[in-house]
């Protein structure tokens, strides 16, 4: 047993981190929220070049995967840099199509997803949400409805989210692509992949919030000293670190369970989702509290991270639903 990321996996994470740091994601996020998707699509293409979407696509369709552990590493970095777009939905759709077996739909979409040409969204039972994320910015919106898979032919008006970079709309109409029990099984698998990727994104987001806050409290002075020297501040940050540190192994174990088709995978993913989601949300609360009123301003880039925390905690499996699943017999 060696329950640690290997050198290659760590290096992959570092490479993505460097790429995203250089890309200056805050400007991309602000543009995406304003409806200008061009910078986001350009970044998407670079992420595809780095192999991110290929991780969810099998080799026979020009992918590298499925590789859940590497996917968790990648989504950690996407979360750390608050990258906008239907990232989770795209890899979950790939998992869904892959499970439906070889056919026209699969052969059409999977190579395009792997190469980054296709940005797709997914609306399904696992999310328990009537909305598709970024439907207006996607090349296709897949909709799971019971045992039927459709590709939507349109969507309703965009409903603003608490996170302006998440654009929500109801998909409607569409063509039936597949029908039957295999859709139900594939949809359940896709929901697991989505929950895992969302958990990883939340964990990365939480780590970024903690790092920014640690930096801030080391600089900001009150009463003549850095506020980071106050015990109440230290303890809150220590608790934030503890929550993130203990969520990470749950995430890695969940990815491994998915990789090995462990029957306990659903439970492991649910445990990781609730822990990472709650840890990230707590990190956002801490970041806001310790930045004070400065943190409550939209101009500060920190707001881009803070506003994502609650939606990520609840997307693709609310804490209550996940806790229920952890205890399912």
């Amino acid at each position: 047993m060696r329950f640690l990321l290997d050198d290659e996996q760590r290096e992959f994470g570092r490479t993505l981190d460097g790429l995203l740091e250089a890309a200056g994601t805050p400007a991309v996020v602000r543009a995406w929220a304003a409806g200008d998707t061009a910078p986001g699509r350009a970044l998407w293409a670079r992420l595809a070049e780095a192999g991110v979407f290929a991780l969810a696509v099998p080799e026979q369709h020009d992918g590298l995967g499925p590789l859940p552990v590497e996917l968790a590493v990648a989504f950690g970095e996407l979360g750390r840099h608050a990258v906008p777009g239907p990232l989770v939905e795209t890899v979950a759709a790939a998992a869904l199509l892959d499970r439906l077996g070889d056919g026209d739909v699969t052969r059409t979409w999977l190579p395009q997803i792997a190469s980054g040409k296709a940005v797709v969204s997914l609306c399904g039972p696992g999310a328990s949400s009537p909305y598709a994320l970024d439907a207006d910015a996607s090349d296709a919106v897949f909709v799971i409805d019971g045992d039927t898979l459709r590709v939507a032919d349109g969507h309703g008006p965009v409903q603003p989210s608490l996170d302006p970079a998440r654009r929500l709309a109801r998909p409607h109409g569409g063509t039936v692509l597949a029908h039957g029990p295999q859709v139900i099984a594939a949809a359940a698998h896709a929901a697991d992949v989505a929950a895992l990727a969302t958990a990883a994104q939340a964990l990365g987001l939480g780590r970024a919030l903690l790092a920014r806050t640690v930096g801030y409290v080391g600089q900001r002075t009150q009463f003549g000293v850095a506020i980071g020297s106050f015990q109440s501040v230290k303890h809150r940050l220590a608790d934030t670190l503890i929550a993130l540190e203990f969520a990470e192994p749950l995430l890695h174990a969940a990815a491994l369970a998915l990789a090995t088709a462990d029957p306990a995978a659903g439970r492991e993913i649910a445990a990781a989702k609730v822990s990472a989601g709650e840890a990230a949300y707590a990190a956002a609360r801490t970041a806001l509290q310790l930045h004070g009123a400065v943190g409550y301003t939209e101009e500060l880039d920190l707001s881009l991270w803070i506003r994502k925390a609650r939606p990520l905690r609840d997307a693709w499996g609310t804490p209550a639903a996940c806790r229920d699943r952890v205890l399912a017999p």
Partner: protein
Amino acid sequence: MDLEFSAAEDAFRAEARAWLAAHVPDTPLPSLETAEGFAAHRQWERTLFADRWSVVSWPEDYGGRGASILQWLIFEEEYYAAGAPGRVSQNGISLLAPTLFEHGTAEQRARILPPMASGEAIWAQAWSEPEAGSDLASLRSTAVRTDGGWRLSGQKTWSSRAAFADRAFGLFRSDPDAPKPHQGLTYLMFPLDAEGVTVRPIGRLDGKPAFAELFLDGVFVPDEDVIGEPGQGWRVAMSTAGNERGLTLRSPGRFTAAAVRLTALWRGQADPSDTALRDRVADAVIGARAYQLFTYAGASRLAAGSRIGAESSLNKVFWSELDIALHETALDLLGPYGELADGAQEAPSHGSWAEGHTFSLAGPLYAGTNEIQRDIIAERLLGLPKGRR
């Protein structure tokens, strides 16, 4: 990365499981915090030792099995899953022994470790003093040089197991003129029945007398019972403190077993509409799993040659709070039966949840308070500036 155990590790698990199934007493032993229970637990240590299960991670020469850290974790999982008795020798095994392996002499190891492994000599920790808890640098008890050894004087307190134990280990101020308070300390061992030692049991919050205060009046300790160099006690003790907070004091097996019991309790009597309680049960289960996995990752790091440093403070805060959450949730599930203590005839699970709850409340206090641990996490892991406490 993987979570697969090797065939040898699976075989080790099977052997431990079979032995425990054959030997764990059918009815729980009386609490080890009572005279009667202490004796029964000492006997249990002998039973473990007879088949080399008392100190699996030690070298075979001292009665162990030379088990790897992973095998030790596996043994602990099986041990708690089997509902085996608490370990009365734990202070010696998990706190003193690692110190002896690192800083002791070959003579000390040969003399001290085998009787520790067999339960013949049970050790108490004597670190705390009335004026010194987590701040060990403010210790006042003294060790004064004399012919062939040292004379110990002063007062130690809150010494776990000391009411019934045989020997104790602790830090003493041997150089009152040392330039800094954590210098000039010496790590010494002494018998609790030595001339000049008075043991006064202190009733704990659970009413049990097993912890005690120790009054030392010129107690003679020969040179052979000094661990490490005189004056270097702080450095020697810090290696033990890491063990206490970290992995070897609280193995995940203890919490995973408690989470399994908690889940069974919830299934047996929970109101399915009480989702608040369900969420707390789920969080306890998730917490136990997280702690187990975090430990596996730590063990993998150790196997890869890393040392565990300030990260042990993350463990300490996490397990101590998890332990309380597990027990509080159980008491809530038990409703009006939750307050029945061990000894009450109708106490569910022989009162083990109630007893465990009271004991869990001490977790954030001992082994360095959680406040101190959070300071360590903030300063050493997050790099925040030192400040007034």
